[in-house]
């Protein structure tokens, strides 16, 4: 369930996990560590520099049952958003 980039910029984020500077499987490990602190229905942001995260975090969400919302590509890093189910 991807939302538009405009909606993504305005979405309220409950928890931000910074996985920048880590390599595979660092970003999904960070997501696993961060998700317990997120309430059901709230949004978590994962910041990452490993480009594989573009595919890996949606795959992680699918497996874990969360909704991947989309990505904002900032200069030098990625901001990926998901909603906890």
């Amino acid at each position: 369930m991807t939302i538009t980039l405009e909606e993504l910029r305005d979405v309220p984020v409950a928890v931000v996990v910074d996985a920048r500077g880590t390599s595979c499987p660092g970003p999904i490990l960070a997501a696993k560590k961060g998700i317990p602190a997120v309430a059901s229905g709230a949004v978590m942001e994962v910041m990452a520099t490993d480009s594989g995260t573009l595919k890996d975090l949606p795959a992680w969400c699918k497996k874990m049952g969360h909704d991947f919302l989309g990505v904002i590509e900032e200069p030098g890093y990625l901001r990926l958003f998901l909603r906890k189910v």
Partner: protein
Amino acid sequence: MAQTDKKTIVLFSGDLDKVLAAFVIANGAAAMGDDVTMFFTFWGLNALRRDHKPATPDKTPLQRMFATMMPRGPKKLAMSRMNFAGAGPVLMKRMMRANHVMSIDEMIATAKEQEIKMIACTMSMDVMGLRAEELIDGLEFAGVATYLGEADEANVNLFI
């Protein structure tokens, strides 16, 4: 809906690159909520050796020779290709650090944190003269039937 599956990995190889691949897959699967069992056999056991050598006075001369010739722990592992008498692993580890890839020691620590089950094959330990006290903490010790029992429950099984 989140679904817990199970993955089993047999680590037969003691090559740095293959051990790394095994731990990346194992830690990735655990991060995705799966139960993971790793079964270490033959050369793969060398990845679990402690840096420091405990006293093992009851070993035979042949077992002692094996223990001396085999790599003692993750830092001593050779590569399957481009080893160049030990220069390859030095360069590989430098490139891993530059790319923020976890070292094998860190991978093993993360595997323990994620409650990945690590089983050392007792038959290979006997053949190669490796004692439980020479290996890291947190292992289980078992044989092929235990591994097969775990593999029966898994939907992915890898031999590395």
